[in-house]
C-alpha cells in the first residue's frame, strides 16, 4: 500500500484548482481496505473486452498519463497557431491525407488524424464552444501562448485562412465517414469510430465549409503575383480541390436511378469523382515529396495524453505514402465506377448479376471501406427505396422481380383479383397469410442485399444466419401454397400431371440451395478447411449442385413451360368454349396481351435458366465431383488417408470434425444433412479394390470428369461472350461473371495437368503403387488457386 502511495506522490498531482479537482486519496484508500483478497471489483458494465484495453495507472504500456515523460518539449508545447510556410502547409496536408487513408485501413483516429495538433486544436475549440460557429474554430490553443510568432504576412494568411479551411474540410469529411461507419459498418473490424469525445463539426453547415475552401483557393490565386513559388501554390490548390470534392461525395446519396427505365446519364453529376482521380494522378502524383517540411512537433501522441482517453497508449500508425496515395485514388475511382455501372442497369437480371459479381464478390480488403459503407447507403435508402427510386421500387418490389426472373412470372397466386370467388373472411385470412409470407421474403431479401457490402468474413457469417430463415420460409411457403391449392384451387397447375406448381416454395428452395453451396465454397476462400476436409466439402457441394440442377431443369422448367402452354393453347381452348360476348372478348384481349408481353419474358427466363444457371450448377457439380474422385485416387496411392483426421486426435474424431463443420446445415429439413457414414461410402475407398486396374479406372474417370467440367465452363463462357444471346442479362462493361467462369475453366485445366502428373508417376513406376505408397515420400499442399473457391491441391515430394 505504501508503494502505491509513494507512487501517487511521485505523480505530483497539481491540485491548484480546487474547483475542478477533488482530492479522493483518502476516500480511495478507505474503500480499498474493504476489499478482500482474491476479489475482483468491477462495474457490471466493464467486460473482458474493455478490460483488455483498460488503462492501468503507472504501467508504461497502459497508462496514457505517463506519455508526458515520453513526449518531447516540442510536442508538448507545440503551438498550432504559428504562421506556416507553403511547403510546410503542403507537407501537413499530405501527411493528413496519408493518415486519413491509414485510419480507413483499420486504424483509429487517435493514432492517425487526431495525432495532428492542428486537427485536435480546431476540434477542441469547436467541441467546447456553445455557438458551434465557424469562427470559433481557430487554431489557437488557449493554453499555449507564443510571444513572438514570427512569419511574414503570407505565412500568417496561410495559417489563419488556408490551413484552417483545410482542417475544417477534413474534419467535416471525417464526420461524414463516421456517420456512414456507425450506421452501416462493423465497429473495429471495418472502421474504428472512437473519437476522444471530439465533435467532428456536426452542426457546422457543409456549405459554409465548402465556402471556406473555395475562398481559400480564390485568395491563393489572388496572391499568386506577390508570393513565393508558383508550383508550390498550385500544389496547394490541388490539395484543396481534392478536399472540396471529397466533401461533395455526400451528394451521391441524393441521386436516384430507375431500373427498367432509361435514366439520364449521371456522368456529369458525378464528374467530380473522375476529376479527382485526374488531379491526383496527373498533378499531385505523390504524398511524400514535401515530407521534410512537416513542422516539428505537429504530429504526436499528445492527444492521447491530453484528452479523455478510454484506451491504452497506442503507437501512431501510418500507412506507406504510396499505398495511401493509391488508396485515395481508389476511393474515388471505385465509387465512380460503382455508381456509373449502377446507373446503367436496365433490368433485374443485370441488377442481380451486378450485385453478385461486381459488389458482393469484390468486397475484399482492397475495396475502400468507406465506399463499401456508402454504396450500401446509396443502394438501399432510409425508406427502403432501391437506388433512390422515386417510382416505388423498393425491397419488396425488387424481391418480386427477382422471383419473376427465376420462375414466378405470371403466377396466379400473385393475381389476387384472379383468385376464385371466396367468402370475405376466408379471403381475408388467406390474404393475411400471403402478406406475411411476402413480408418474410422481403426481410430475407433485405438481409441478403445489405450483406452485399459487408467484408467477406462477415458476409459468410450472415449468410449462415440467413440460411435458417430460408429453411423456415420454405416450410411455411410450401404449407401455404399447398393449403390454398387444395382448399381453394388458388395457384397454377403443372401441365400434364394435375399437380400444383408451387412457384414460391421452389424459388425459396432454389435460393436456399445456392446459399448452402456458396457458404461451403467460401470456406475455401477464407482458408477455413484443412486438406483432409476438402474432399468432404467438395463432395457435399457436388450433391447440392446436383439438387439445384435438378430443380432448375425439373420443376422450375416445368413451371415455366406449363405457363407458356397455358397462355397459348390452354387459354385458347378456354376461349373457344365461351359463348360469344363480352366475356369472350375480354379473355381474347387478355390472351393477346399475355402473348405479347408475358410469353416473351418467360422465354427469356427459360433461356437464362437453361444457358446460364443450369450450366453453372452443372459445372459446379462436375468439377467438385471430379475433385472428390481425385481425392479417392490420392487415397488409393496413399498420399492422403481420407479416414484420418488430425494427427493427435485423441480428444475428438474426424467424424466430430465433420459434424462440427456441417453444423450450419445440420438443422436443414430438405435436403437433410448426409451423415459421415454417407460420406465414407460415397468416396468409394473400399480397401479391397486397390488393384492396379481399379486405380487406372478411377484415374480415367477422374480425367473425364475434369474434361467434362472444362467443356461446360467453355460453353458458359461462349454464352456470356456472345452479347447477342447474353447481353440482356449481363451489364455491358462488367466483367465479373466472365472472370468468374474463366477462373473456373482455368481451375479445370490446372487439375487436368495435376491428375496427369499423378498418372505419369504411376506409369513410370513399374511396381505401380509402391513408390507412391510410401507415405513419407509424398505430401499434399494447399496454395492459392485460380479461383477463390478452388485452392490448388498439389502432390509434392517431401523435402
Amino acid at each position: 500500500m505504501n508503494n502505491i502511495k509513494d507512487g501517487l506522490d511521485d505523480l505530483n498531482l497539481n491540485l491548484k484548482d480546487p474547483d475542478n479537482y477533488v482530492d479522493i486519496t483518502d476516500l480511495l484508500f478507505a474503500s480499498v481496505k474493504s476489499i478482500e483478497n482474491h476479489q475482483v471489483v468491477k462495474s457490471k458494465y466493464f467486460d473482458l473486452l474493455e478490460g483488455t484495453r483498460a488503462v492501468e495507472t503507472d504501467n508504461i504500456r497502459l497508462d496514457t498519463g505517463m506519455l508526458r515523460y515520453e513526449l518531447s518539449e516540442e510536442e508538448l508545447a507545440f503551438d498550432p497557431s504559428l504562421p506556416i510556410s507553403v511547403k510546410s502547409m503542403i507537407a501537413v496536408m499530405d501527411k493528413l491525407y496519408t493518415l486519413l487513408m491509414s485510419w480507413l485501413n483499420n486504424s483509429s483516429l487517435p493514432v492517425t488524424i487526431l495525432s495532428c495538433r492542428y486537427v485536435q486544436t480546431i476540434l477542441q475549440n469547436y467541441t467546447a464552444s456553445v455557438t458551434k460557429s465557424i469562427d470559433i474554430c481557430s487554431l489557437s490553443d488557449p493554453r499555449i501562448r507564443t510571444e513572438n510568432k514570427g512569419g511574414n504576412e503570407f505565412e500568417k494568411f496561410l495559417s489563419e485562412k488556408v490551413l484552417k479551411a483545410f482542417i475544417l474540410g477534413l474534419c467535416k469529411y471525417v464526420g461524414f465517414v463516421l456517420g456512414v461507419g456507425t450506421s452501416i459498418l462493423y465497429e473495429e473490424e471495418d472502421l474504428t469510430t472512437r473519437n476522444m469525445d471530439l465533435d467532428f463539426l456536426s452542426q457546422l453547415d457543409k456549405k459554409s465549409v465548402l465556402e471556406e475552401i473555395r475562398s481559400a483557393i480564390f485568395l491563393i490565386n489572388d496572391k499568386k503575383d506577390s508570393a513565393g513559388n508558383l508550383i508550390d501554390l498550385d500544389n496547394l490548390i490541388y490539395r484543396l480541390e481534392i478536399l472540396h470534392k471529397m466533401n461533395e461525395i455526400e451528394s451521391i446519396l441524393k441521386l436516384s436511378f430507375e431500373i427498367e427505365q432509361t435514366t439520364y446519364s449521371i456522368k456529369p453529376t458525378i464528374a467530380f469523382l473522375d476529376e479527382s482521380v485526374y488531379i491526383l494522378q496527373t498533378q499531385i502524383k505523390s504524398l511524400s515529396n514535401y515530407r521534410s517540411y512537416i513542422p516539428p512537433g505537429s504530429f504526436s501522441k499528445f492527444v492521447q495524453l491530453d484528452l479523455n482517453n478510454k484506451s491504452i497508449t497506442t503507437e501512431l500508425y501510418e500507412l506507406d505514402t504510396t499505398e495511401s496515395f493509391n488508396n485515395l485514388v481508389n476511393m474515388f475511382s471505385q465509387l465512380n465506377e460503382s455508381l456509373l455501372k449502377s446507373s446503367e442497369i436496365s433490368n433485374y437480371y443485370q441488377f442481380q448479376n451486378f450485385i453478385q459479381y461486381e459488389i458482393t464478390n469484390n468486397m475484399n480488403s482492397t475495396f475502400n471501406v468507406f465506399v463499401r459503407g456508402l454504396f450500401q447507403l446509396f443502394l438501399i435508402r432510409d425508406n427502403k427505396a432501391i437506388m433512390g427510386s422515386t417510382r416505388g421500387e423498393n425491397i419488396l418490389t425488387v424481391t418480386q422481380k427477382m422471383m419473376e426472373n427465376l420462375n414466378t412470372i405470371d403466377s396466379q397466386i400473385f393475381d389476387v383479383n384472379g383468385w376464385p370467388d371466396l367468402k370475405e373472411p376466408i379471403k381475408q385470412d388467406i390474404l393475411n397469410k400471403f402478406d406475411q409470407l411476402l413480408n418474410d421474403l422481403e426481410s430475407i431479401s433485405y438481409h441478403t442485399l445489405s450483406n452485399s457490402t459487408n467484408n467477406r468474413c462477415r458476409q459468410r457469417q450472415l449468410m449462415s444466419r440467413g440460411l435458417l430463415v430460408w429453411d423456415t420460409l420454405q416450410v411455411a411457403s410450401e404449407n401455404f401454397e399447398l393449403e390454398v391449392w387444395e382448399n381453394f384451387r388458388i395457384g397454377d397447375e403443372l401441365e400434364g400431371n394435375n399437380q400444383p406448381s408451387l412457384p414460391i416454395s421452389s424459388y425459396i428452395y432454389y435460393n436456399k440451395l445456392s446459399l448452402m453451396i456458396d457458404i461451403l465454397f467460401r470456406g475455401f476462400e477464407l482458408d477455413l478447411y484443412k486438406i483432409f476436409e476438402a474432399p468432404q466439402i467438395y463432395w457435399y457441394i457436388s450433391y447440392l449442385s446436383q439438387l439445384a440442377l435438378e430443380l432448375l431443369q425439373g420443376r422450375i422448367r416445368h413451371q415455366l413451360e406449363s405457363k407458356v402452354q397455358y397462355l397459348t393453347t390452354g387459354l385458347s381452348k378456354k376461349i373457344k368454349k365461351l359463348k360469344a360476348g363480352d366475356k369472350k372478348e375480354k379473355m381474347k384481349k387478355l390472351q393477346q396481351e399475355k402473348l405479347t408481353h408475358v410469353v416473351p419474358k418467360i422465354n427469356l427466363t427459360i433461356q437464362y435458366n437453361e444457358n446460364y444457371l443450369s450450366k453453372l450448377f452443372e459445372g459446379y457439380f462436375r468439377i467438385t465431383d471430379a475433385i472428390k474422385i481425385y481425392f479417392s485416387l490420392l487415397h488409393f496411392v496413399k498420399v492422403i488417408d481420407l479416414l484420418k483426421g488430425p494427427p493427435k486426435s485423441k480428444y475428438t474424431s474426424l467424424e466430430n470434425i465433420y459434424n462440427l463443420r456441417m453444423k450450419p446445415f445440420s438443422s436443414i429439413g430438405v435436403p437433410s444433412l448426409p451423415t459421415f457414414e454417407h460420406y465414407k461410402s460415397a468416396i468409394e475407398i473400399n480397401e479391397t479394390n486397390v488393384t492396379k486396374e481399379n486405380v487406372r479406372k478411377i484415374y480415367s474417370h477422374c480425367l473425364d470428369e475434369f474434361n467434362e467440367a472444362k467443356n461446360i465452363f467453355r460453353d458458359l463462357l461462349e454464352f456470356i461472350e456472345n452479347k447477342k444471346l447474353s447481353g440482356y442479362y449481363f451489364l455491358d462493361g462488367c466483367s465479373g461473371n466472365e472472370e468468374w467462369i474463366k477462373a473456373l475453366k482455368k481451375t479445370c485445366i490446372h487439375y487436368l495437368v495435376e491428375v496427369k502428373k499423378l498418372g505419369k508417376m504411376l506409369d513410370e513406376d513399374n511396381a505401380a503403387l509402391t513408390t507412391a505408397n510410401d507415405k513419407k515420400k509424398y505430401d499434399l499442399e494447399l496454395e492459392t488457386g485460380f479461383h477463390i473457391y478452388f485452392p490448388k491441391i498439389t502432390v509434392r515430394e517431401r523435402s
Partner: protein
Amino acid sequence: MNFSTFNQTAEEFEEISALISSHLSEPYSIYVYWFFLNTWPEYCITVRLENDPKLVGVIISKVEKHRDVRLRGYIGMLVIDPVHRGKGLASKLVEMTIERMIQIDNVDEISLETEVINKGALKLYESLGFMRTKRLYRYYLNTHDAFRLILPITEKSMKRVAFLPALGT
C-alpha cells in the same frame, strides 16, 4: 519439467504476467490477468525446469456458458519462453488443459482465437483436433484477421444454438 497449477500467490502472479507481456504483442491490463487467474486458478497451468525455478511457460483459460446452451472452455493465453520452444511444452499445456476441462467441467467444446499468420499456434492446435470455424476480419489491432478455432467434444458442440435447450442456472 514441472507442470503445476497456479499457486495463487502474488509472486507467481507477477511472474506470469511478466512472461506473457514480454512475449505477446497485445498488452493486457492487470485486470485481465486477475479476471482469469482469480476466477479460474485451476485453469492456469505453469511449467518450470526441474532444476531451475524460473517460469518458462504458462497457459491461461476459462470455462463459461456459451449463449446459455453449451459449456465452452476458452484458452485465453499461451506462452512459452522462446529459449524453450519446440520441446513440446505448449502441446503438453494444451493437452493438460483439455483434460482438466473435460474432467472438472465436462465442457462441450473448447475455443480460442489466433492470428491467421501464427502458423506455429495453428499447427499446434489443429494437430490436436481444433477446427477453424470462423475467420474474423481484422480481429487484431495490427490489421490481421484471426481464426476462431473449436475443438468439438460432445454432441452439443455440433448442433446449432437455436436447436439446443437452455442450460439454465
